[in-house]
């Protein structure tokens, strides 16, 4: 049966309007952030935005986790800018994550470079920029910082935690390790365990940065140069994995950027110009060390890799929505199915959808009606109808590792 791919549609309503990014200090020497690596951070600031209003009962909060190169600016428009936040099409009055109902919180990741403490921040102990001295971080450290921001905002429990790609991984980790702090989790185009191919792509991206002469073993932050060539190549490579072959064919085909062929080794095909542009614009908003740190976090992510991984969430169940896109080859539907097998095998209430889309991994950022309708329907299930229970009849209710994973 051939499936009709969903087409892109316009966002509903006016959006959330003007917004600004704020800062919160969530770790200080008296309350250091303990990291999975064993290190700790004495000072952590988090950049975040909120949209909508927190109800008096504080029970309508939805946390948005961003993907690899996102930031706290998920929706609305910053003063003096015209481009809305990265997930504006899904967040706003009347949109799938409806700010007339939900109080939406979005923050920048630990290790990032858009306001939250990371390798480009000052190490308070030395007065120097952290650089490669910044400790190794883990998906779980992101979640700990999110929870500290939640405490700062006075939110004990989220109606939902929502994320796409690496954001979905945070939502998954969060649900497994702190299930008492959320009712629902939406995990879109994500993975619980990267494949060798995924890691290979990340590795080449990192190598492009590290082997750039201007990387200077990570000391570029103190110098007046930056491994921009490496960073732009890493971004170009990553972009190839974010779109499907169909999307590339549809968007560019073999057309020439300048009307007719210009044989040589420079930019000639339209797709080359596109990648070149993506690589260039990325330089203005991202840092090479942040890129290295954050991609590495994904490589090591494997939350179902230990016995008892689902014990906590089985004791305090979360309702799951897992969504993937049929043309996604960065995290193919098989990745989402693995997540579903583990959760369903633990007896948890999980819904799973494969959205037909020609846009590959990037589909999670697009307004495709079946996808957004689904997120809305899931978030808006009346309280009395949310399952919130796990079945003891399920084989992995006891949290042991699924042996079938070995063969897959």
């Amino acid at each position, binding site marked *: *049966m051939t499936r009709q791919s969903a087409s892109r549609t316009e966002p509903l309503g006016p959006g959330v309007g003007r917004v600004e990014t704020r800062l919160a200090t969530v770790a200080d020497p008296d309350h250091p952030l303990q990291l999975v690596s064993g290190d700790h951070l004495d000072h952590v600031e988090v950049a975040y935005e909120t949209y909508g209003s927190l109800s008096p009962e504080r029970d309508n909060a939805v946390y948005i986790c961003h993907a690899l190169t996102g930031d706290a600016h998920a929706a609305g428009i910053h003063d003096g800018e015209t481009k809305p936040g990265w997930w504006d099409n899904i967040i706003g009055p009347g949109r799938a994550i409806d700010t007339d109902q939900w109080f939406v919180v979005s923050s920048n990741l630990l290790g990032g470079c858009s306001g939250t403490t990371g390798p480009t921040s000052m190490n308070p102990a030395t007065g120097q920029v952290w650089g490669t001295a910044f400790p190794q971080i883990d998906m779980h450290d992101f979640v700990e910082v999110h929870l500290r921001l939640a405490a700062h905002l006075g939110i004990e429990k989220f109606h939902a935690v929502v994320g796409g790609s690496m954001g979905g991984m945070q939502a998954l980790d969060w649900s497994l390790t702190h299930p008492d702090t959320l009712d629902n989790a939406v995990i879109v185009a994500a993975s619980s365990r990267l494949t060798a191919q995924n890691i290979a792509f990340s590795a080449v991206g990192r190598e492009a940065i590290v082997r750039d002469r201007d990387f200077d073993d990570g000391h570029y932050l103190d110098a007046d140069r930056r491994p921009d060539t490496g960073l732009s190549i890493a971004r170009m490579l990553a972009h190839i994995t974010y779109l499907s072959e169909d999307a590339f064919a549809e968007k560019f085909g073999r057309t020439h950027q300048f009307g007719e062929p210009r044989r040589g080794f420079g930019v000639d095909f339209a797709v080359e110009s596109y990648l070149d542009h993506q690589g260039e614009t990325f330089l203005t908003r991202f840092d090479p060390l942040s890129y290295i740190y954050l991609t590495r976090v994904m490589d090591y992510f494997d939350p179902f890799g230990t016995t008892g991984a689902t014990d906590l969430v089985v004791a305090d169940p979360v*309702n799951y*929505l897992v969504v993937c896109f049929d043309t996604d080859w960065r995290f193919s539907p098989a990745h989402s*199915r693995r997540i*579903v*097998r583990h959760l*369903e*095998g633990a*007896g948890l*209430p*999980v*819904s*799973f*959808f*494969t*959205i037909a889309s020609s846009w590959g991994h990037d589909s999670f950022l697009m307004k495709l009606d*079946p996808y957004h*309708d*689904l997120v809305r*329907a*899931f978030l*808006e*299930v*009346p309280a009395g*109808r*949310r*399952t919130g*229970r*796990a*079945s003891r*009849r*399920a*084989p*992995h209710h006891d949290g042991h590792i*699924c042996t*079938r994973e070995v063969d897959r």
Partner: protein
Amino acid sequence: MSGQTGLRPDQVIISDLVPTGSRVLDLGCGDGVLLRRLMDERYCLGTGVDSDTSELLRAAALGVPVLEMDLDADLGEFHDDSYDVVVLSRTLQAVPRPGRVLADMARIGRLLIVSMPNFGYWRNRLRLLSGHMPVSKDLPFEWHDTPNVRYSTVADLESWFAEAGVDVLQRISLGGRGRPTRAAGLAPNLLAGSTVHVLGSNWTG
């Protein structure tokens, strides 16, 4: 009752056959109303499976956990002996490889509930004798526009169950209006418009 909840008559019967507190897998769950009923009234937990996104969207809005999967290809995703009850209502006739589906059902669940239209129903036989393919409440499609790819009689179905190594624990025979009747129970192969079978799985890992 069925009108209010959107349950078909065979689903009403099935919901009464499912033991309270069961974990139920509903294959071909459509809009999820059967599972919703079982969750609300029988303290069941369950999962629906279907391949129709728009129907499943309605199920998701009801708070029913549903997986968009293909019955013919994806039942391997489910763990061995992981459900008490596996329901296949009005779906077997539309499945390209029913033997594979039944084997997977027996692997996944202990109690299997299968509802099927009966091609051998006397009205269908009369339709055929008059030279036309049957169209009825239970087989509501024209031959050229039907999701059904298999047609069976009660007799065929039960001998197939025997071959497949599942035990028929109970047969409920529904008349042409979709309700159990005495006559249909006495001579199901001729007088039942459809049947609901409760099967015991004999699967051992």
